[in-house]
């Protein structure tokens, strides 16, 4: 077979792979067909990898085989992590993906230093900058999610100016390289500056903003791969990168809307700073609490119950106890559903995965817009480890930092029950007027233990 004919077969394999990738995402539109989507993606990826191994440019296979084996050896355990570790695993995979894209760009620069044109230099620089900052940014995000690093935002005066100057520095070096691509000393400095910028970008961001950040890093990782496709003139990379980039972009927009933040606000990293602690008027307000026994009897008398899970449920690992509660109440003929706020948890869809892991049928998980109209007919809204997404101040109090954020209208339910460790305000430091309403009962304790006690009470009857 001539080399040209072989090249055409390889290109054809890539086209089939691209079609399978798009099909893979399309099949994800419904949980019933989603697993076929994974299969389509796997076949496409395998086809592309195998075709690449026949590329006539390859002269040595030793390092390819060794690294593929290492990659599989690292990848399988990373795919087997516990479901509660999914947010940090996702951040880590953004880091790996961005690192690969950056490294390939760097290698391409050192291969082609002699004949690189100004235009190509611009492409490579941009690609390597985005890849590098996404790499370190994602590592910081993974560290925060794994709680190796503090989850609270780390801020200092003039932070935005310092961060933006560093970014400007990286871009300035890129411009200098475009002007004179032979100035090789500048290239590693540019990479270093971009790596530093990634750290600066994510350190000021708090845990509650992680769903937005992780989506944004997802989109950066995708676009860096697409840019790499431009550098290498590889259409399969352009398409896969564009798909991943637009997916991250859509998720970022959804997360922004769910937090009532503008997209520019997020793009320029001004987030994490909105959390001015509103040390408002400290009036004595009455809070009513209830014991597990009382809670159990109220739940048993209800017809319709809506459970609102949040990050607290994930931290307490309460999802399996919640499933037991769901089973008991359902057996009594009580209608139990789960209200899912888009930013509940630490990444898009976090709560759905945890509840699915606990074997709760997905048709019981209802999105915010669909369930909000049902709260006035709901007997009990049971909030487990969620705070800001239920705060009615977002609707009424113009001075509240979260004013305008769409929330779950739990305050319209006949009885509101909140499982919470103490009256300390939540992560964002914003007081929640929900806790002082007449129909609200505070259930103080650890989410897993408290739900466990309710289950015990209900099981006893």
């Amino acid at each position: 077979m001539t080399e040209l004919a072989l090249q055409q077969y390889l290109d054809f394999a890539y086209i089939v792979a691209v079609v399978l990738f798009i099909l893979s995402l399309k099949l994800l539109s419904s949980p019933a067909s989603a697993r076929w989507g994974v299969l389509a993606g796997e076949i496409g990826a395998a086809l592309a990898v195998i075709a690449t191994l026949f590329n006539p440019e390859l002269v040595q296979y030793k390092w390819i085989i060794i690294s593929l084996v290492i990659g599989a050896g690292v990848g399988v355990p990373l795919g087997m992590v516990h479901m509660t570790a999914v947010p940090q695993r996702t951040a880590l995979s953004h880091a790996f993906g961005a690192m690969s894209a950056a490294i390939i760009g760097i290698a391409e620069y050192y291969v082609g230093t002699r004949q690189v044109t100004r235009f190509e230099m611009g492409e490579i620089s941009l690609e390597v900058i985005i890849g590098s900052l996404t790499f370190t940014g994602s590592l910081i995000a993974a560290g925060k999610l794994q709680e190796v690093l503090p989850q609270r935002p780390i801020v200092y005066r003039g932070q935005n100016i310092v961060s933006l100057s560093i970014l400007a520095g990286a871009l300035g070096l890129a411009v200098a390289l475009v002007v004179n691509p032979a100035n090789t000393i500048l290239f590693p400095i540019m990479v270093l500056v971009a790596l530093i910028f990634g750290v600066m970008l994510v350190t000021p961001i708090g845990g509650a903003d992680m769903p937005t950040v992780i989506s944004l890093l997802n989109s950066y990782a995708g676009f860096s791969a697409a840019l790499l496709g431009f550098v290498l003139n590889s259409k399969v990379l352009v398409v896969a990168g564009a798909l991943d980039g637009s997916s991250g972009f859509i998720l970022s927009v959804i997360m922004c809307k769910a937090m009532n933040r503008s997209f520019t606000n997020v793009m320029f990293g001004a987030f994490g700073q909105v959390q001015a602690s509103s040390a408002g008027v400290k009036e004595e307000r009455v809070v009513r609490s209830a014991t597990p026994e009382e809670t159990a009897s109220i739940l048993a008398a209800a017809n319709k119950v809506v459970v609102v899970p949040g990050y607290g449920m994930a931290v307490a690992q309460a999802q399996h106890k919640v499933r037991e509660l769901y089973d008991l109440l359902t057996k009594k003929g009580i209608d139990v559903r789960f209200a899912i706020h888009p930013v509940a948890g630490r990444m898009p869809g976090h709560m759905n995965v945890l509840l699915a892991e606990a074997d709760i049928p997905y048709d019981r998980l209802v999105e915010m817009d669909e369930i909000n109209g049902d709260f006035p007919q709901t007997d009990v809204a049971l909030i487990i480890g969620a705070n800001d997404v239920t705060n009615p101040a977002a609707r009424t109090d113009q001075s509240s930092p979260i004013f305008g954020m769409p929330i779950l209208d739990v305050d319209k339910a006949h009885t509101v029950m909140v499982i919470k460790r103490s009256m300390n305000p939540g992560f964002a430091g914003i007081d929640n007027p929900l806790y002082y309403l007449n129909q609200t009962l505070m259930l103080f304790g650890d989410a897993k233990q408290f739900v466990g006690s309710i289950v015990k009470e209900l099981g006893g009857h």
Partner: protein
Amino acid sequence: MPPDFISNLYVFILAGFVGFEVIKRVSPLLHTPLMSLTNALDAIVVVAAIIIAGRHETRLTTILGAIAVAASFSNMVGGFVITDRMLRMFKSGRSKQS
């Protein structure tokens, strides 16, 4: 502008639109698996890494290529494995009873 750039730009824009239309329809229920699946697909950069590692031009590029092969292939394998594990957990109320 080189002609390759223009044709790549066409592909990028069209793929971006296709991605937007397809991903818009993904149920919010599956946003976490969506992210892990797109990560696995994005790991297709492994094909570029394989070429860099196997062309054996300089020692530096071979090492860089090998690192990129390992990192992106781990993403590909791990991404597919975890996406499938997650999707296996999603059961509807009807299928559960049967």
